[in-house]
């Protein structure tokens, strides 16, 4: 796997999106699949930076790991923020999305967009690092 390390600050988001865009193109993803993957990664990277680092007063990296093999593109975000499993959060239900905007809670959309954007999304804690794993089929197997 290739690894690129970014500082855990919001101005890294653009560079992270760029890396994922290049990898998506190399893997031959459709425009739509690439957009969705970029969106998913931007959402989780934002959560790591804002909730994992900024709000807890921590500083640290966001590592972007990529691998294109066996008919799938895998992207992993690794960080040293406090352990946090995004899948443990309660997901918004239909009622949430039908609410008028003025009554809506402000959070919950990012993880929803993430899960719907990729073929597989997983979380694990390994060596005390958060690992958010995104897998998209490249359709060449």
């Amino acid at each position, binding site marked *: 796997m290739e690894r690129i390390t970014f500082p855990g600050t*919001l101005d890294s988001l653009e560079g992270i*999106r760029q890396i994922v865009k290049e990898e998506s193109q190399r893997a031959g993803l459709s425009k739509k699949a690439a957009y969705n993957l970029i969106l998913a990664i931007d959402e989780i990277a*934002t959560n790591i930076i804002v909730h994992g680092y900024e709000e807890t007063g921590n500083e640290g990296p966001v590592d972007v790991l990529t691998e294109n093999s066996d008919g799938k593109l895998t992207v992993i975000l690794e960080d040293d923020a406090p352990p946090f499993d995004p899948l443990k959060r309660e997901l918004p239900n239909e009622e949430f999305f039908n609410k*008028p905007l003025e009554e809506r809670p402000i959070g919950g959309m990012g993880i929803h967009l993430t899960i719907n954007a990729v073929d597989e999304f997983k979380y694990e804690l390994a060596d005390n690092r958060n690992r958010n794993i995104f897998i998209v089929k490249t359709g060449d197997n």
Partner: protein
Amino acid sequence: MSFTILAEAKKIAKITLTGEIDSLSAREFQKEIEKMAAESPDELVLFVENLTFISSAGLRVLIFAKQKMGSGLAIYIVKPQESVIETLEKTGLQHSVNIVDQYL
């Protein structure tokens, strides 16, 4: 900068969004909305033809606008690209905004 705002606050607030709105640029977008909210506009018109990416942070600014400017506020989203429309639809926001090809 990856996006620019051209603001003209009367009763109709108009903003042009270009480039990519992530959590960083959404903070600027939100500041602009806060300024405009002071004028209590009736309509918020967003020209987004050249907006290529919007994350949930950008969508939250739309929710914020509605909450800040009042439920009577009509939001127009002019000429969104397909990916932007899809994100609005996946989050149910298309019911609360007016997606139009042209703002008259």
